[in-house]
């Protein structure tokens, strides 16, 4: 693996670690072999600046002299829905928050946040009940599952099987 590939991996991983909900694609620029487009999709408008700032901060970490240049290209949810819809339906579960969101969408019918809609539709009612979580509509929050890590693994497995 060369230096460029390794920077590409580090950038993708760091963005995933901080904003795991959003699909990330890091690719070379057609104008310059040492510039990387850092594309992050399905970002809520309120997070657009935070994601951009993270990419700019990473520049100082991975290549402070800009020998490899990171170019932030952050796509909001609205833009992703209209121009890159394929990034909204094939997203794997990456965190407990994902499961919470799927279940929230399933129970409330609110698909305002489009990420994970496909996955939501594959969860069975019995499985949702089995997670032992309840949605409190008064406060708009899910209770925590009893054993989050095991439950998350089981959720991931069920979704993979259903797909």
């Amino acid at each position, binding site marked *: 693996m060369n230096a460029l590939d390794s920077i590409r991996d580090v950038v993708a991983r760091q963005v995933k670690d901080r904003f795991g909900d959003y699909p990330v694609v890091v690719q070379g*620029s057609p104008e*310059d072999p040492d510039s990387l487009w850092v594309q992050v999709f399905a970002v809520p408008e309120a997070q657009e600046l935070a994601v951009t700032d993270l990419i*700019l901060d990473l520049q100082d970490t991975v290549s402070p002299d*800009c020998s490899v240049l990171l170019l*932030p*290209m*952050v796509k909001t949810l609205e833009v992703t829905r209209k121009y890159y819809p394929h990034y909204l339906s094939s997203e794997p579960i990456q965190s407990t928050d994902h499961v919470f969101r799927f279940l929230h969408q399933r129970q409330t019918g609110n698909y305002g946040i489009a990420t994970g809609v496909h996955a939501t539709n594959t969860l069975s009612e019995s499985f949702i009940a089995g997670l032992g979580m309840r949605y409190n509509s008064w406060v708009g929050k899910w209770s925590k599952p009893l054993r989050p890590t095991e439950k998350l693994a089981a959720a991931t497995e069920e979704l993979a099987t259903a797909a």
Partner: protein
Amino acid sequence: MREKSDENWRVGTECLENGDLNVACSRIYYAVFQAALAWARTKKGFADTSGSVHSAICRLISREGGAARVRDCRTYSQLQGLRLTADYQPDPPSGAMLERLLLASDTMRQEYLKKAQ
């Protein structure tokens, strides 16, 4: 280069007011690029004319040091990302992001035009 930079800036900001984001982004980027290019040519002996010239300018800025280096590199990278979106991708660049960058872009542009003299 000042005339070109000024013209691009004027057209870019007019297009931004009209909501023509692709053109606005491209012109505003080039207004800043031409100011930085003028400085690079007159003060750094910069002669690159390849497709990599846009990123090469950012690398030159980053090696300058000084308090404004971080601000200028960040502004330029973001503008370049928006311009590449306008040039190569199906979606328009973010108008909100471009609005946020206006002040820093004009400051940077004016400073590099001054430094180029």
